[in-house]
């Protein structure tokens, strides 16, 4: 476990990429060398072009995350607490969950138009499920002995929820939030692909049409930076809120849309 070796490996990969692209004369519209990508990145940032699009995409992602996460939390809570609610609604939810949400993007664009709203709705839809499922699992996982203890103190169901079930569910909910944050970004980008006037997804598509592959790589690089920082924000909040529990490594950046 050598940190320098890790860094060295990354540098080596970039060097091989650079060397191969130049020595084998790979055309820039197929695979540009890393230096060209870096140049593209520099141009995009210096001209102020990327800043505006980054802002738009992040805003869509964040609002979509808020929308989807709160809806997922609310519905998950209802399902976890009410057997009746679960009985009637769960088949619908499962059907909906089995559907790849990104396939809904074209419809969402038709319904909500080309600007911000449709991206927020799509991001919200995609990140809704991980949070709902994790909320249900978390609220249901309350330890039987702890429930017995609360009941033996003559606690009301409301008290059992606030003092036991909800705090006990927080590790699971935060695992859901980590996934939901990344999913929201995916949802926003996909909606931008389908139809948008601004945003990094739209930028990738227009660069694709003009065969600016180096530019595309630079946007991908920015997207992964955005993903990392969003994840870091959720983790930082988690450390504050779920201070008694260390994050499980398998929960990090996991899953697919």
């Amino acid at each position, binding site marked *: 476990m050598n940190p320098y070796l890790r860094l060295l490996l990354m540098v080596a990969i970039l060097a091989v990429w650079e060397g191969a692209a130049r020595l084998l004369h790979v055309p820039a519209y197929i695979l540009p060398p890393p230096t060209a990508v870096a140049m593209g990145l520099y141009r995009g940032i210096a001209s102020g072009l990327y800043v505006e699009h980054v802002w738009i995409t992040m805003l869509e992602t964040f609002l979509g995350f808020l929308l989807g996460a709160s809806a997922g939390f609310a519905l998950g809570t209802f399902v976890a607490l009410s057997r009746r609610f679960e009985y009637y609604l769960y088949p619908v939810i499962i059907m909906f969950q089995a559907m790849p949400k990104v396939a809904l993007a074209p419809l969402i664009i038709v319904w909500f138009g080309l600007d911000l709203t449709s991206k927020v709705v799509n991001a919200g839809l995609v990140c809704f499920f991980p949070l709902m499922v994790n909320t249900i699992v978390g609220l249901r996982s309350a330890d039987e002995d702890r429930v017995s*203890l609360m009941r033996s*103190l*003559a606690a009301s169901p409301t008290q059992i929820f606030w*003092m036991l079930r909800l705090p006990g569910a927080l590790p699971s909910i935060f695992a859901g939030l980590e996934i939901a944050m990344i999913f929201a970004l995916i949802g926003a980008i996909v909606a931008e692909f389908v139809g948008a006037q601004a945003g990094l997804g739209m930028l990738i598509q227009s660069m694709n049409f003009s065969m600016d592959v180096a530019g595309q790589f630079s946007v991908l690089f920015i997207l992964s930076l955005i993903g990392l920082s969003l994840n870091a924000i959720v983790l930082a909040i988690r450390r504050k809120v779920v201070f008694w*529990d260390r994050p499980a490594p398998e929960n990090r950046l996991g899953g697919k849309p």
Partner: protein
Amino acid sequence: METETETHARELIAVRRLTKRYGTAVTALEAIDLSIDDGELIAIVGPSGCGKSTLLRILAGLMPPSEGEAWLHGSRIEGPRRDIGVVFQTPVLFPWRTVLANVLLPIDVQRLGRDKMQAAAMNLLKLVGLDGFENHLPNQLSGGMQQRAALVRALIHDPSVLLMDEPFGALDAMTREQMNLELQRIWMERRKTVVFVTHSVGEAVFLADRVVVMSPRPGRIIDTLEVDFPRPRPLSVMNTEAFGVHVSRIRQALNATGGLE
């Protein structure tokens, strides 16, 4: 029933013909009759699955009996009561609450006002040797310390009855003896009525004024014996002949029903 309860002045808990069945196949308890005096430390001993925990859960109001009834303070137990403290086999502390906040859980649930009870909590923590740990989180404490915190939590709202379900069963032998001594000390100081369920015959005889012996399923009371060693009892009382006599009598009763096979 009520007249019967009144005739026995010191009686705090009355159990009458109590039966508990799970489904149709399993009878956990059968026709239990038991009377527990105010301030008594009673131990219920029996093999695993003899229904002793079931009896405790019924007394705690956590489950209803199938037949018969249980009374506390002259009123029938029909659900959880506020004047009962329960200690489970595991400490059951909430990992997000500090030791002090865990101990104050009954106060929060019953809205008795934390400010007033803070001092009482600190006193109790001192009583069990946990002073200085009030701001620690449970996972920073050893198993024995966690169970002490659980004991304080059961005492904080000053219940008249302490129900203990194999509370020291998960601890190592030495910690367990220490906890037995401590429980005796607390009991002598506070004079709560304690119902102590255990599968350890020695622990039962060491702690209790009276030991109730139960048979394997369906759980019945097969023997009751008074233990009148003077208190405070030192651990060395376990080496006396009289102690051995009690222990072997209980073992015989358990053996006769196949309880120790």
